[in-house]
């Protein structure tokens, strides 16, 4: 059902049809969807891993990820540290609209397709379409929620469990935007990038991946993560999906308005 809707959504909004899918997209009016779709002024295809935004520089546009994967990174003296990753439909550096300069870099991994939205357009949205602006705000706070979960994850988990948590999160997020499949997902992620994302050395990651494979939690091979049992993976990674704000505890079925709340429940029940 959801996937059929998404298919139709992508036919109508090929650039931004995945934005907030499975979360708050239902609270976006048709007009708002049109406005967002037409706010993208330029689409760029990127062939290989590229740093598309440098920390500390001023930007006048923000980036919608259309295809591919992106990592937010902070450079250390010797290493790169990954502080989050992004899947298609994510407005990866919408933060930049309010912050103007970012504290981190945006790096694509593998080929990617991105759309640029001039901040001028975003300012117009804030002035003329406050409800849409609130949805945009919401989307940046999803990032903050994921950041908090990652802090917790890093405070608590071993490397193998961190990786399981990362796989579980990527998979759930891909499924919300109609990507991935029932057995896992394709990804250009490398072991080096997994090390950047989990705060571990490459050797540690290698060992942890073997542990995941040997205990039938997940199998990472170049270009692919295979998962036999979602429950097992999520239990191993201490993963609880609520912080993604998809269906569950934090889901905003009713959107921002209290009135809609009842209506929406009726629709979903019927």
């Amino acid at each position: 059902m959801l996937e059929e809707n998404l298919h139709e959504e992508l036919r109508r909004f090929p650039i931004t049809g995945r934005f907030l899918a499975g979360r708050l997209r239902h609270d976006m009016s048709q007009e708002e969807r049109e406005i967002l779709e037409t706010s993208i002024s330029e689409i760029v295809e990127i062939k290989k891993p590229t740093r598309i935004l440098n920390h500390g520089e001023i930007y006048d546009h923000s980036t919608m990820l259309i295809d591919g994967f992106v990592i937010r990174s902070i450079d250390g003296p010797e290493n790169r540290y990954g502080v989050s990753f992004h899947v298609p439909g994510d407005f990866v550096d919408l933060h930049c609209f309010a912050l103007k300069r970012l504290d981190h870099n945006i790096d694509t991994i593998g080929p990617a397709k991105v759309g640029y939205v001039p901040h001028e357009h975003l300012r117009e949205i804030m002035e003329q379409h406050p409800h849409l602006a609130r949805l945009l705000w919401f989307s940046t706070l999803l990032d903050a929620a994921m950041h908090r979960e990652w802090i917790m994850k890093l405070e608590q988990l071993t490397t193998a469990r961190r990786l399981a948590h990362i796989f579980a999160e990527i998979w759930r997020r891909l499924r919300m935007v109609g990507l991935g499949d029932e057995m896992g997902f394709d990804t250009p992620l490398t072991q080096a990038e997994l090390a950047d994302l989990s705060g571990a050395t490459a050797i540690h990651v290698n060992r942890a991946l073997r542990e995941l494979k040997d205990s039938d939690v997940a199998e990472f091979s170049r270009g692919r993560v295979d998962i036999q049992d979602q429950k097992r993976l999520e239990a191993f990674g201490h993963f609880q999906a609520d912080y993604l704000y998809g269906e569950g505890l934090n889901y905003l079925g009713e959107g921002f308005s209290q009135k809609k709340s009842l209506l929406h429940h009726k629709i979903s029940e019927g």
Partner: protein
Amino acid sequence: MEKQSTKLAGNDFPFSGDFLAGRLRKHLSHDDLYYIESLFDGTLTLPARETLVERGKRMDISAILVSGFMFRTIQMGGNRYIVGIHLPGDFVDLHAFALKRLDHSIVAVDDTRVAVVQHKKLKEVMDQRPHVARAMWFATLLDASIHRKWIHMMESLGAPRRIAHIYCELQTRLSLIGRANERVVRTPFTQKDIADMSGVSAIHANRAVSKLRELELAEIRRGSLYTDHWSALRKYAGFDASYLYGDGPLHLNEGWGR
């Protein structure tokens, strides 16, 4: 130093005087600042260790911290993890205006006072004062920026350096709101709090604190850090304050422009 903040805040802004101080506050007009102050309905006193916002509960109000310390916490498998620290001027659960339900809880560390604003008023801000709304958005993204730094810190630093980093951050944030002391960062944190925010056991945290003392970088007693060697401590922690968006390379000198 502590006096200065009350002077800066003045009686004109008893609720929001520290909001974005040292950061975007100077780019807001006097009119905007009075407008922001007028949004709040009044204050609420919260005794130490009381929860302000519970995870998963639908919220129709948000709160700004007026005095005291607060934590953002996540409960998992019987343990509490501290994922953020808040100081006066922080609009602690402004997030709830867009998220409605929070993925985490917000708790008072010591006796705290917060000022409360209704979401329907924030909606008016978005409708009528997009410029102010953008400043509020900015404020929530400062939290995201601090979160990213904490992720980076957890990925790259051992326990003693994490603890040093946390106190360096507090010192800078206190100075942004004019409440820093030169030689001490006073906090109501317990040993357990320090352990829970640095992702190690209490024993480990104790050892890390001893290490900072042995290296003659800092002394932590009853939650407060004493040092005469800030630059050595910052260097040890690899602390670079730019992610806090005060004066520094990421600072928004020019405002937003168009």
